[in-house]
C-alpha cells in the first residue's frame, strides 16, 4: 500500500528528468545557425574536431544525435569546454564542493533560524518584538536576493573592509591546515549570510503562521489543561502538528536557494557551479551551459524527490491516499 506512493513519486521524478534532458537537447538545436558549431569550437584542431564529431554523432540524423546525447548525459559526459578545452565534468566537479558548502550551510542556517525564530515568535504574537521581527523578515523576504548580496558587499566588503570581496580563498592561498580552513570560512561568511538573509524569511513566516494556527486548536488547549509546561505544549504538541507542512517547504524553498546560489556566486565571484553557468552563458560556452544546467536540475529534482519521500514518512495520511 505505502510502497505505491514512493514508486509513483520516483516515476514522476524520472519523467521530469526526461523532460529536462529533452529540453536541454532541444534548446541548443532550435538556435539559429549550424548545430555543429555549437559543440565544436572553431579553435579546435582538426583531429580533435573529428574525434568530437564522431563522439556526438554530429554527422548522423537528429534522432541518433538525441539518443547519443541522452546516453552521454546520463554518463555525465557533457563534452569539452570551448574556453578551457577541459572536459566539462572535471570543471564541474572542481566547483561543486564550493557550491554545496555554500548551499548546505545556508540551508541549515535558514531552517534553524527560521523555524526556531518562528516558534518563539508565535508564542509572543502581537508583542513589539514579534512585530519588529516579522516586519524585518517581510522586508528581507521581499528584497531581491541579489540586492541583499550587494548590500552586504557594500557594507562589509568596501565600507568596512572586514571580509574579502571576491573569491573562495586568498591569493596566494595559505599552506598550513588551520589557516586554510580559516581562510575558507572567512571567504564564505558574506555569501552564506547573503543566501540566509534572503531565504530564512519564508521559513520564519511559514513556521510562525502554522504554529499560531496550531496554538488555537483544541488539542493544544487540552495539553495546557493537563498542566504541561509551555515548552512541552509548544514542542510536543503544537510544533509536531506543523512539521508536515514545514517539510513541504523544503520543496518550496529549493528553487529559491538554487537561484540564490547562482546570484550569490556571481556577486562574490565564488568558484562554484552557479557562477560557472552565468559565465559560460555569457561566453557562449555551450557544452558547459548544458552541463551546468543538467547538474543543477538534477540536484533540484533529487531534493524534491527526497522532500516528497520524507513527507510520506512524516505524514502517514499522504501515503495511504
Amino acid at each position, binding site marked *: 500500500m505505502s510502497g505505491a506512493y514512493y514508486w509513483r513519486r520516483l516515476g514522476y521524478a524520472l519523467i521530469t528528468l526526461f523532460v529536462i534532458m529533452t529540453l536541454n537537447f532541444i534548446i541548443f538545436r532550435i538556435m539559429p545557425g549550424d548545430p555543429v558549431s555549437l559543440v565544436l569550437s572553431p579553435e579546435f584542431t582538426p583531429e580533435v574536431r573529428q574525434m568530437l564529431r564522431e563522439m556526438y554523432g554530429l554527422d548522423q540524423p537528429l534522432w541518433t544525435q538525441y539518443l547519443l546525447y541522452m546516453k552521454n548525459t546520463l554518463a555525465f559526459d557533457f563534452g569539452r569546454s570551448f574556453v578551457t578545452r577541459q572536459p566539462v565534468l572535471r570543471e564541474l566537479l572542481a566547483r561543486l564542493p564550493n557550491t554545496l558548502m555554500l548551499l548546505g550551510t545556508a540551508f541549515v542556517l535558514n531552517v534553524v533560524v527560521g523555524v526556531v525564530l518562528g516558534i518563539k515568535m508565535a508564542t509572543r504574537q502581537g508583542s513589539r518584538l514579534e512585530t519588529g521581527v516579522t516586519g524585518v523578515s517581510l522586508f528581507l523576504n521581499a528584497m531581491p536576493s541579489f540586492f541583499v548580496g550587494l548590500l552586504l558587499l557594500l557594507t562589509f566588503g568596501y565600507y568596512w573592509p572586514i571580509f574579502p570581496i571576491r573569491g573562495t580563498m586568498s591569493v596566494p592561498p595559505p599552506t598550513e591546515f588551520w589557516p586554510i580552513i580559516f581562510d575558507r570560512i572567512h571567504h564564505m561568511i558574506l555569501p552564506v549570510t547573503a543566501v540566509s538573509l534572503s531565504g530564512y524569511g519564508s521559513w520564519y513566516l511559514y513556521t510562525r503562521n502554522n504554529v499560531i494556527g496550531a496554538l488555537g486548536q483544541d488539542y493544544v488547549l487540552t495539553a495546557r489543561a493537563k498542566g504541561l509546561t509551555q515548552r512541552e505544549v509548544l514542542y510536543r504538541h503544537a510544533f509536531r502538528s506543523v512539521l508536515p507542512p514545514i517539510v513541504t517547504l523544503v520543496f518550496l524553498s529549493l528553487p529559491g536557494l538554487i537561484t540564490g546560489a547562482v546570484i550569490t556566486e556571481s556577486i562574490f565571484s565564488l568558484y562554484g557551479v552557479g557562477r560557472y553557468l*552565468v559565465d559560460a552563458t555569457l561566453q557562449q560556452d555551450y557544452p558547459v551551459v548544458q552541463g551546468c544546467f543538467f547538474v543543477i536540475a538534477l540536484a533540484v529534482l533529487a531534493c524534491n524527490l527526497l522532500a516528497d519521500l520524507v513527507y510520506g514518512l512524516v505524514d502517514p495520511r499522504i501515503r495511504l491516499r
Partner: protein
Amino acid sequence: MNNPQTSTTGASQAVSVTPAASAVAVKAKPRRRGALREIWAEYRRSPQGMLGLFIFMVFLFLGLAAPWLTPYDPLQDQFLAERMARPGWMSYFPAYRNAPVTVDRFLLRNWEVTTADNVEITWGERQDEPVMLVRTTGPGPARLVLESTFDYHSSSPDTFFIQIPYAFVGEGGATGQMVFRFVTADGRSYDMWTSRTFRNEVRWTTQRVDSRDMQLKMRLGFRPLANLAADLINAQGEYRLILELTANAGETGTALFTLGESRFRIPGQLHGLLGADHLGADLWSQFVYGTRTSLMIGFVVALIAVVVGTLVGIVSGYVGRWVDELLMRIVDVLISIPFLPILIVFVAVLGKSIWNLIILIALFSWMSVARLVRSQTLTLRERAFVEAARAAGASSGYIMRTHILPNVLGLVFASLVLQVPGAIVSEATLSFLGFGDPRVPTWGRMLQNAKSFGAFGELAWWWILPPGLALTILAMAFVFMGNTIDDILNRRNREE
C-alpha cells in the same frame, strides 16, 4: 457595459452575448456589483492594503510621468556631470557645500530679448523640435541680442560646454554673423564663439564650444594649459550668457536665422536628484524610466501568467479525468525545473530582447495560478448552481465561461497582484546578471552597471541603493495589496 436592451433579432442577441459574457453574468446577478463595492469598503479599512496601494500609486506616477520628470534620455545622454557625481541635494551637507553643482541650461523660449533692431521673431518646427526663426524686417543692418543668466554659488568647475544649433539663409546679398558671449560675475566679457560672416546659406549645424579647447584659450588670452572654466567661473554671483545675431539685409535682401535649443552646461560633482553614473549619465532619469519598464514587465508577465493559469486551472478542474491528470503532471514538471537557470539558458539561446524576457518569465510562472484556480474549480463544480446548469443542458464550455469563471475572478485578481513582484524581481535579476535587454533601461541594469563599473569601490551608494530599495519596496507593496485582497476573499468565502 452597454445597456441590456431587449433583443430584436436572434443574430443581434448572439452578437451581444458572446463578447460580453462575463459582463452579462455580472448584470444577471445584481449581488455581484455590490460585492465589488463591499470588497473595496473592506479593503479601505486595511492599513496594510492602503499603504501598498499608495506606494504602488507613487511608482505608477513615476513610471507614467517619466518623460516629464526628466529632460534626459536615460541611455543616450552622457557626460552631463562628472564621473559618479553625487546627488545635487548633498550640497546641504557641510562636506559638499562648495562642490560644483551641475548647471544645465536649455535655451530657446527662455532667452530674454534685450535688443531687437529691425528683426522679427517667429516660431517654427524642425524635425518635431521647436525652433526660433529670426528674420530681418527691412533693409540695412539688423541686430538681435538674446540673454540668459544663471547664479553660481559653488567652487570653480573643471569644464563647461556650449552648443548652439543654427542655420542661416541670406537672400539678395544679405549677410549675417553670430557671437556667443560669456559675462562673468565680476563683469569680464569673453567672446566664446564668433562665427564667420555668413553669406547665402549655412545648412543646419551645431556649433560646440568646449572650455578645454586650447585654441579657444589662446584666443581669449590664456595659456594653453590653463583651466579656462576655473578662470572664468571663479566667483560667486550672477553670470550672463549672451547670444548676439547681427545681419545686414542690404538694399533688398532678407536674412533668416533658424535657432534651435542652445545649451550651456557645467558638469558638476553634484548632479540632479540621484547623481550620475560612470559616464556622467543622469541616474534619476535611469531610475524613472526603469520604474516604467519594471511596472510594464511586471503587469504584462502577470497578465499572461494569470490568463494561462486560469485557463489551465478551469479546464483541468472542471473537465477532470485524464485531462486533469495530464495538465497537472505538466504543472508538476514545470514547477520542479529550476527557474533562474532555465531562464538564463533560454535567454542565452533566444537573445536578450525585452519581449523574450517577458514571454520566458511568464512561461515559467503560471503554474501556481493554475493550481489555485483548479482547486477552487473543484469545489465550485459540486455546487448546486453548476449542477442546475448541467441539468438544464448547458455545455461544459458555457458552464466554465459563465458559472466557473466569474466565481474564480476574485482569486485570479489576487494572484495577478501577487504575480507582479515576482516578475519584476526576476527581470531585475536577469538584467543584473547581464542577460537584460541592452536597449532598455531597467533597475537591474542600473545595478549591473554599478557592479561592473566601480560604484562599489567608490562607495557610490546613491547609485546602488535607489534601484535596489525601489525593487524591495515595490515588491512589498504588491505583496501587501495581494495579501489584503486574498484575506478579504477568504473571509467572504468562509461566510458564504
